[in-house]
C-alpha cells in the first residue's frame, strides 16, 4: 500500500476490540427485555414421517407456558433463501423431512419450562422410508423427499463451453479421477439467537444474522408485512461463515410467539440444534476428466458432480453453480463441460459455507492435477505455473479477470517454503504439497432478483467536527468490516480513524447493503463508504475555501488538517473548524455513497452465479509428516501467498487468511458431520465433530504479493474465503508426496492414510485409474 495514505494500509486497533475484550459486547443471546419470554422449537425425531396429529393441550396446561404454536398458527407460505426453490415451511404441515425438522414451538417464562413443555406436545407420526444416500436418491422407487421434485432432483446443471470431445480426442494424455467430499458444518462459536418483538403491527428482530436485508425481505414476505414495518437489527455476531445468512425457525416462530403473547420472545438453538439446522457444506461426489498436451497444458476439463443437498434448498442452487463455475478461475483452459445434480435427501439442509461450493471441487481438482503431473513426470509446481491464470483474461465461462498475480503467488510460495530444495529431497514420511485457490470479491448479483444497489453508506459529521459517524448496512460478524470501513471512510474524508464511530446493520437506521457473504464487503461496501467520504471532503474543502480565501481545488485535507497544495507554508485550518462553520451556515454535514455492480457475465443458464467485479488468487504449500505406524497426519507448516489487491488493514487481513486456513485444516483432516443409519447425527457437538484446537493448528505463514485491482476502492479485493479453497488439496498432495498414497475422499483421516499405506504395501492398485 502506498505511503501516501494516512489511514488505510495501517494496523489500527479494531473499533470494537475493547468492548469484546472486556465482555461488554452484547450478542443476541445476551439481550434482555422487560417481560421477555423464552421460546424453543420442537423438532422431528424421524428422518421422514407423516404427521398424523399434534396434541398441544397438555403443554398448554403447564404453568409458565404462554403460547404453543404449530403449522395451524403460522402462514403456510413456503420460503427459502434461494428464490428458485422456496420449499420450506415455518412448521411442517403434512410430513417431516429430516431429524430436526420444525414441528411446533413454545413460549414460556423461562428456559426450563420450555423444555418441559416441549416434552408434553404429543405428535403422532407414521414413519416413512427415508433416503439417506445421495447416490441412491435418484433411483426409481426411492422415497420422495418433496413431491414436486421427481427423483429427488433439486438442481440440475449441464454447461458446455468450447468443444470438450475434440479437446480430449486431441490430448496427449487424458486422466479420469473420482473423489468424494464430506458434509461439514460452519460451527460458529456463538449459537444462533433472536429476540422478536411484534408490537403495534410492527416487527423488530434482533438476530445473529449475516444479512439484515435478506432477513427483512423474507420475513416481511412470509407475514405479508411491508418491509418498512420489519426492522432487523444485528447486535454483535459471534461468527457466521455462511451459516447465519438465512432466516431460521428462530425468527419465524419467535415473531409469531411474540405476536400471540404481546411480549418479547428470545429464541435460541443449542449446539445440537445448530448441527440439525445445519446449512453447512454439501458432500459432493466428484468425477474429473482432463486432457493435457505433452507439456502439461490443460486442453479441456469435464467436471461431473453429484451433491447431497439434504432436505431443503437453502442456498444450494447457488452452491451447485459455484462448485463448477469457480473451477475455471485458477487455470486457463478453453474447453469445459460441467454437469451437476444436487439431490434431496432426508438429512439436514446444506448451504453456503466459507468458500461457497469451491473447496471440495478444488480438493478434487488439485489432487487430480497432481496425478496428471506425476503421469507426465512434471513437478507439481511446474504444471501449475504452465496453466496459471493471467491478468486481463476472460474465463471460458465468461468471468472477466482484471488483476491476477497467481504466477507471482506460486513463485513466492515456492521461494518462502523452500519448495525447490525440498521437493524430492525430504525423508520418507515427510512430504510437501501445493495447491491454488481463487474466490469472488462479492457476488455480481443479489440472491433474489432486484435492482437495488449492492451497497450504500452515509456519513454524518458531528456539529463541531470532533466525530463522524458512518452509517452502513454492512455486517461485521467478526471479520472486522466495521473497522476496515471506518478506515476507508476516514481516508476518503481526510479525517482520523480515532474519531470515527459506526452504526451498522440495522435496517431502520442504516442504508441498504446485502450483507456479509461472498466476500463482498471490503470491495462493495467499501466503494460506497469511499464515495460518502469523498462527498464529505468535497463539502468541507468548499467551506474551507471561503474561510481560507483559497480556491477549493488548491485545498486538501489529511488526518483532519486542511492545507493548501500549492502553498505549503500557508496557514492550515482544522477539519473541526470547517465542519463547525459548515453546520452553522448550511446545516448537517452529510455524505452519501452508493455502489452498483456493472453488468457481468455471459448469457447462458446460470451465467450470473460466480460473477464478480474482481477475483482473488492464492497459492498454498504445506509440509506434512506422516506416522507410518498410525497414519497420523501432522501438518508441520503452511505457507499461504495471497493476491488480494491492496490492503486496508494488514493485521485483519492476515487474520482472515489464518481463519480461512484453519477451517480448511479442520475440514481436511478431522471435521465431518456423521449420521447413523436412521439419519440421526452422531456427533452434534464440538468435541465429537473434532473442531481443531490450538494444539492442532500448524505453523502458518501468510504473505502477500503486490497487486492492484481496478474494480475495487483503492485497489482492494477478496481475502476472507479464498484461503479455505486450496488447503484440502494441498494437504492431500503433501500426503501423496510423503507416502505415495492418494486419499480420494475427505476428510484425510489417519485411518484412511493408514489403510492406503497398508494397501500400497500389500501391492493393491490405487483406486484412481488412468484412462
Amino acid at each position, binding site marked *: 500500500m502506498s505511503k501516501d495514505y494516512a489511514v488505510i494500509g495501517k*494496523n489500527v*486497533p*479494531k473499533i*470494537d*476490540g*475493547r*468492548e*469484546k*475484550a*472486556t*465482555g*461488554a*459486547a*452484547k*450478542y443476541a*443471546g*445476551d439481550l*434482555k427485555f422487560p417481560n421477555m419470554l423464552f421460546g424453543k422449537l420442537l423438532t422431528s425425531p424421524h428422518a421422514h414421517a407423516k404427521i398424523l396429529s399434534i396434541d398441544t393441550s397438555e403443554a398448554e396446561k403447564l404453568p409458565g407456558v404462554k403460547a404453543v404454536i404449530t403449522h395451524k398458527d403460522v402462514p403456510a407460505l413456503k420460503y427459502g433463501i434461494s428464490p428458485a426453490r422456496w420449499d420450506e415451511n415455518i412448521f411442517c404441515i403434512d410430513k417431516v423431512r429430516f431429524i430436526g425438522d420444525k414441528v411446533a414451538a413454545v413460549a414460556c417464562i423461562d428456559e426450563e419450562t420450555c423444555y418441559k413443555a416441549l416434552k408434553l406436545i404429543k405428535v403422532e407420526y407414521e414413519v416413512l422410508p427415508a433416503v439417506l444416500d445421495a447416490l441412491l436418491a435418484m433411483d426409481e422407487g426411492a422415497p420422495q423427499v418433496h413431491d414436486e421434485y421427481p427423483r429427488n432432483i433439486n438442481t440440475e446443471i449441464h454447461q458446455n463451453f468450447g468443444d470438450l470431445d475434440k479437446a480430449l480426442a486431441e490430448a496427449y494424455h487424458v486422466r479420469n479421477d473420482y473423489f468424494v467430499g464430506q458434509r461439514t458444518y*460452519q*460451527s*460458529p*462459536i*456463538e*449459537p444462533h439467537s433472536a429476540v422478536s418483538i411484534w408490537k403495534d403491527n410492527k416487527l423488530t428482530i434482533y438476530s445473529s444474522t449475516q444479512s439484515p436485508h435478506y432477513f427483512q425481505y423474507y420475513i416481511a414476505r412470509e407475514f405479508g408485512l411491508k418491509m418498512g414495518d420489519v426492522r432487523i437489527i444485528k447486535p*454483535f*455476531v*459471534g*461468527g457466521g*461463515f455462511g451459516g447465519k445468512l438465512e432466516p431460521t425457525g428462530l425468527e419465524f416462530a419467535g415473531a409469531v410467539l411474540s405476536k400471540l403473547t404481546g411480549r418479547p420472545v428470545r429464541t435460541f438453538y*443449542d*449446539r445440537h440444534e445448530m448441527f440439525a439446522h445445519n446449512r453447512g457444506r454439501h458432500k459432493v461426489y466428484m468425477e474429473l476428466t482432463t486432457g493435457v498436451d505433452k507439456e502439461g497444458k490443460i486442453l479441456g476439463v469435464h467436471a461431473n458432480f453429484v451433491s447431497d443437498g439434504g432436505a431443503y434448498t437453502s442456498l444450494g442452487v447457488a452452491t451447485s453453480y459455484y462448485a463448477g463455475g469457480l473451477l475455471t478461475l485458477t487455470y486457463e483452459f478453453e474447453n469445459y463441460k460441467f454437469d451437476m445434480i444436487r439431490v434431496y435427501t432426508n438429512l439436514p439442509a446444506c448451504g453456503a459455507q466459507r468458500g461457497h461450493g469451491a473447496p471440495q471441487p478444488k480438493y478434487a481438482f488439485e489432487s487430480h492435477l497432481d496425478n496428471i503431473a506425476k503421469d507426465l513426470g512434471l513437478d507439481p509446481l511446474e504444471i501449475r505455473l504452465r496453466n496459471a491464470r493471467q491478468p486481463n483474461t476472460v474465463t471460458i465461462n465468461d468471468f472477466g479477470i482484471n488483476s491476477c498475480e497467481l504466477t507471482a503467488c506460486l513463485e513466492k510460495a515456492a521461494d518462502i517454503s523452500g519448495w525447490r530444495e525440498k521437493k524430492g529431497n525430504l525423508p520418507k514420511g515427510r512430504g510437501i504439497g501445493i495447491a491454488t485457490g481463487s474466490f469472488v470479491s462479492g457476488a455480481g448479483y443479489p440472491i433474489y432478483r432486484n435492482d437495488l444497489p449492492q451497497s450504500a453508506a452515509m456519513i454524518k459529521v458531528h456539529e463541531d467536527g470532533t466525530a463522524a459517524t458512518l452509517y452502513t448496512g454492512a455486517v461485521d*460478524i*467478526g*471479520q*472486522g468490516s466495521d473497522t476496515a470501513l471506518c478506515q476507508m471512510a476516514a481516508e476518503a474524508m481526510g479525517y482520523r480513524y480515532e474519531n470515527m464511530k459506526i452504526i451498522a446493520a440495522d435496517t431502520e437506521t442504516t442504508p441498504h447493503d446485502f450483507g456479509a457473504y461472498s466476500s463482498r464487503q471490503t470491495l462493495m461496501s467499501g466503494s460506497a463508504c469511499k464515495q460518502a467520504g469523498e462527498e464529505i471532503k468535497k463539502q468541507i474543502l468548499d467551506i474551507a475555501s471561503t474561510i481560507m480565501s483559497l480556491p477549493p481545488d488548491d485545498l486538501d485535507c489529511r488526518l483532519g488538517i486542511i492545507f493548501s497544495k500549492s502553498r505549503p507554508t500557508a496557514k492550515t485550518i482544522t477539519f473541526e473548524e470547517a465542519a463547525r462553520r459548515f453546520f452553522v451556515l448550511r446545516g448537517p454535514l452529510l455524505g452519501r455513497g452508493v455502489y452498483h455492480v456493472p453488468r457481468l457475465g455471459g448469457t447462458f443458464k446460470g451465467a450470473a452465479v460466480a460473477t464478480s467485479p474482481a477475483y482473488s488468487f492464492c497459492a498454498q504449500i504445506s509440509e506434512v509428516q506422516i506416522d507410518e505406524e498410525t497414519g497420523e497426519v501432522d501438518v508441520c507448516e503452511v505457507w499461504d501467498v495471497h493476491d488480494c489487491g491492496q490492503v486496508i488493514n494488514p*493485521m*485483519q487481513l*492476515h*487474520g482472515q487468511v*489464518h*481463519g480461512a*486456513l*484453519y*477451517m480448511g*485444516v479442520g475440514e481436511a483432516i478431522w471435521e465431518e458431520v456423521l449420521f447413523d443409519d436412521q439419519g440421526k447425527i452422531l456427533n452434534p*457437538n*464440538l*468435541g465429537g465433530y473434532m*473442531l481443531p*484446537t*490450538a*494444539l492442532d*493448528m500448524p505453523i*502458518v505463514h501468510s504473505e502477500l504479493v503486490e497487486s492492484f485491482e481496478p474494480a475495487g476502492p483503492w485497489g482492494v479485493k477478496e481475502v476472507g474465503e479464498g484461503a479455505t479453497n486450496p488447503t484440502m488439496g494441498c494437504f492431500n498432495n503433501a500426503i501423496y508426496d510423503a507416502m505415495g498414497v492418494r486419499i480420494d475422499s475427505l476428510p484425510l483421516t489417519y485411518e484412511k492414510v493408514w489403510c492406503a499405506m497398508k494397501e500400497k504395501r500389500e501391492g493393491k492398485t490405487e483406486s484412481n485409474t488412468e484412462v
Partner: protein
Amino acid sequence: MSQVITDKHGIQHYMITINVNGDDYTRVVKANTLLVNVLRDELDLTGTKKGCELGDCGSCTILLENKPVDSCMILAIEADGKKITTIEGIAESSELDKVQEAFINNGAIQCGYCTPGMIISAKALLTRNPHPNEKEVREAIAGNLCRCTGFVNIVKAVLKVSEETNDKEVISNE
C-alpha cells in the same frame, strides 16, 4: 452447607453466596442451576458466554478460586462460598488488563465470542507461569475453541504479554 428452602410445589431451592469480582452476592438457586446461568441471568454478567453447554468450547471459562473452569460444567450450589472472577473483573482497575490489551493490539479478536473465555485461560496461565513457551500457551488454551483466528494471533498475543512482563513485577505481584 447452603440453606434449603422448599417451595409450595415441594421443589428445593438453595441459598448460596458467591463472591464475584470482589463482591458477595446471595441468590436462591435450584439444585440443577448452572453457575453460568447465575452469572449471566441473575448477575447480568453476560461477558461469560455460552457456546455449547457441554464443556467443549470454553466460552464460559471463569476463574473459580483462581483456577480456570467451564462455568457450564459447574452447578451454582458447588460454587457456594467461593471466589469467582469473570471477564468483567479481570482488570484490576478501569484500565484494561495486559492480556486484554495484547489481544486488541495483536489481532487476537475477531468475532469476540470466544474472547472472554480465552482471555481468562490466558490470564490463568500467565499468573502461574509468567513466561510460557508456545507449546504451553497452546496447551493452556486448548480448551477454548475459536473458529475465527486459527489461534495464530491469540498465541502471539499471549507470548507478547510474557515478553513484556518483567520479572520484578511478577515477584512483587506474588
